[in-house]
């Protein structure tokens, strides 16, 4: 195959309401996966109208993408303009205390319409060469299913959706979660309540790996401002993102196929069926250290700016350059 002419790594679409630090760190993990050529970050969208949060996420994206260059742009963050803006955690404002960081989002003009961005960036993907990650209420994705031609486009371009659906996310928009699970036209993998609390992101890594690997990273200040340190963070979004980028790595166990439904109380139901398009993901205790290792290494990795031509990397997915001492970090887990 001629260099640069092959099918690129999968395009990643990430949607969240960014209410937890886990959902923010997952953007870092996604970009870490991009740095390893496991995916290409296509677009990040947000399901609540909050400019302050959007500005922080935009700044994070620019940290990873670098400035626009030949034939490439830094796309806007897609932001829903209806609904409630919700709380603005100090995690999203504290990082701008550093004069090196500039908030590029001043008004809604600096953001994009999620459906337009979904459509535009789906059109730029090869068939069956992308995935969606839902790490928040399903509001944006449910709206996308109503958009002209979108369902067909998703079916053509996307391989799967990985949805982090703890109760909190479902209850935020029950109708949307029901609609997405019922109508999404690709296989859907669901991270339920258990994974997020069973494997928590180790807060101790902020002053260790993050400080050592990428001292300019936009997460350390956010993490420290989110809650009083030390604390570990539940990892629903991180789990969904890691599985989406490396589905064959065996980080989590996938159930047999079936149909997942959403009950009115926000709980999930699962019915096994050979024709089902849904699978539940669960923790594999034997993989816990490996998962934590990936969380730390990928979220704290230095940015690798997107390149126009970059061949798929087949063998280095396991060859992370720096292995942090996960066991030690786990032992240091705050009580």
């Amino acid at each position, binding site marked *: 195959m001629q260099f640069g002419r092959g099918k690129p790594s999968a395009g990643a679409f990430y949607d969240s309401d960014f209410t937890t630090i886990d959902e923010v760190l997952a953007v870092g993990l996604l970009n870490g996966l991009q740095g390893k050529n496991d995916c290409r970050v296509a677009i990040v969208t947000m399901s609540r109208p909050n400019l302050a949060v959007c500005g922080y996420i935009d700044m994070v994206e620019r940290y990873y993408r670098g400035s*626009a260059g030949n034939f490439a742009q830094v796309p*806007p963050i897609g932001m829903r303009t209806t609904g409630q803006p919700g709380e603005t955690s100090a995690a999203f404002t504290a990082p701008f205390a550093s004069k090196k960081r500039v908030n590029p989002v001043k008004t809604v*003009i600096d953001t994009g319409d999620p459906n*337009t961005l979904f459509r535009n960036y789906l059109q730029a993907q090869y068939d069956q060469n992308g995935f969606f990650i839902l790490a928040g209420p399903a509001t944006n994705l449910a709206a996308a299913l109503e958009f002209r031609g979108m369902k067909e486009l998703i079916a053509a371009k996307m391989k799967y959706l990985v949805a982090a659906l703890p109760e909190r996310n479902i209850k935020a928009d029950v109708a949307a979660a029901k609609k997405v699970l019922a109508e999404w036209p690709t296989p859907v993998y669901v991270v339920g309540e258990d994974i997020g609390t069973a494997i928590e992101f180790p807060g101790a890594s902020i002053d260790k790996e993050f400080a050592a690997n990428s001292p300019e990273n936009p997460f350390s200040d956010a993490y420290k401002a989110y809650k009083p340190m030390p604390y570990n963070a539940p990892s629903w979004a991180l789990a969904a993102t890691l599985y989406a980028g490396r589905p064959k790595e065996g980080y989590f166990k996938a159930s047999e196929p079936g149909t997942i439904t959403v009950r009115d109380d926000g709980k999930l139901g699962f019915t096994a069926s050979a024709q089902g398009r849904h699978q539940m993901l669960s923790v594999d205790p034997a993989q816990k250290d490996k998962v934590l290792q990936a969380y730390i290494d990928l979220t704290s990795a230095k940015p690798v700016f997107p390149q126009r031509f970059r061949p798929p990397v087949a063998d280095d997915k396991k060859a992370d350059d720096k292995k942090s001492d996960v066991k030690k970090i786990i032992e240091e887990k705050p009580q």
Partner: protein
Amino acid sequence: MITRKALPRRTFLRGIGTAAIGLPFLDAMSPAMAATTKSPVRMAFFYVPNGMIMDAWNPSYEGAFQELPRTLKPLEPFKDDMLQIGNLTHNTGRALLDGAGDHGRCSGSYLTGIQVKKSLVEIKNGISFDQIVANEIGKQTRFPSLELGMEDARQAGDCDSGYSCAYTNNLAWRSETQPLPPTLDPRALFERMFGSGQPMTPAERARQSKYRRSILDYVTDDTHKLETSLGPTDRRKLDEYLSSIREVERQIERAEKDNQQIDPHMDKPYGVPADFAEHFRMMSNMVAIAFQADQTRIVTFLMTREGSSRPYRELGIPDGHHPLTHHRNQAELMEKVRVINQYHVQQFASIVEKLKSTKEGDGTLLDNSMLVYGAGLSDPNAHLHEDLPTIIVGKGGNYFKTGRRVLARRETPMCNLFLTMMDRMGLHVENFGDSTGRLDGLDLA
């Protein structure tokens, strides 16, 4: 009781041979004591290629115009009639898996909102928005639309990385496979507008040339008859109008004479002047006449074609336009592009002035027009398809609130503007190209 019969709007001065000259709107065309007759709305697209140096196009502010940025300076006298719209995007101009060829794609999709097929032989686009409007209202005028250009009308060959010249050399598309090639030759346009609708045969042209007759000479009888039935205001208006036609005719004759003297082997139609500004002035004067006489309400004008490497020696720039735009952020090259960008706007300002100075009803022809001036790329060095340079001059019949800069949300489809303009032209459709709705934030009247 007033019984005066109004002159029909589509009255022509006809004469010997094939001459047929449409008339401007005259008071005599208004039924006596009738409510004010509503003037038709016209729209035109002036396309310039190879993007812009955006720091000289975008002002640093939003809202009411203050000092205009450098490229737009020639439009300073008309800034109260101008609306600048930022952040419009043509996603279909992007590669979308088709690789190189941004110039071919961006002009091909500019008015269609369709990703064109990358091919030299299997041409596939979509019907352009101007033609959708022309299909609807074109029957009301002599020409449903006019397609004009100034540089290159080749319809075959490779004009950009595997994209046919059909994509770079046409703006208007009647169907997904049928472009409407622009008229480049002022003489051909003149004969089409004031003759039978078709260019004259060489024999007809030779006969006319031999006797050095003006097209106006052929309609003398009709003109005299009409004048006797007009009031003094209408007579003056008619006289000014016919004088403007005669002036265009003289310009064409001068160009033809100059061409014979300058270079008999030049690779241009006989009547095309060598001077860019002169060529534009002649073509745009005829656009003004066509609008004034309601010969058409729709014009597309490809000022030069996408990927054009035309040098601008008249500005002291011997380098090709397209190579210059790949400036790699070198200040000297960027400066030359800024000069070219402003020069194009300067030409465009001449037709704005013409329409602004032409009275129509209680206002001007410009008030009842929507002249869109823009490009299919923004930053040409990066080949970006977002924040496309776009201005609308004219209020579209008190439709647009002008005199300001409006920013749309990033990635807003250009086709959203087209839907909004279609509404104004009396055509209400739900979707066009990759539109996602009407354009927000314009405070339409």
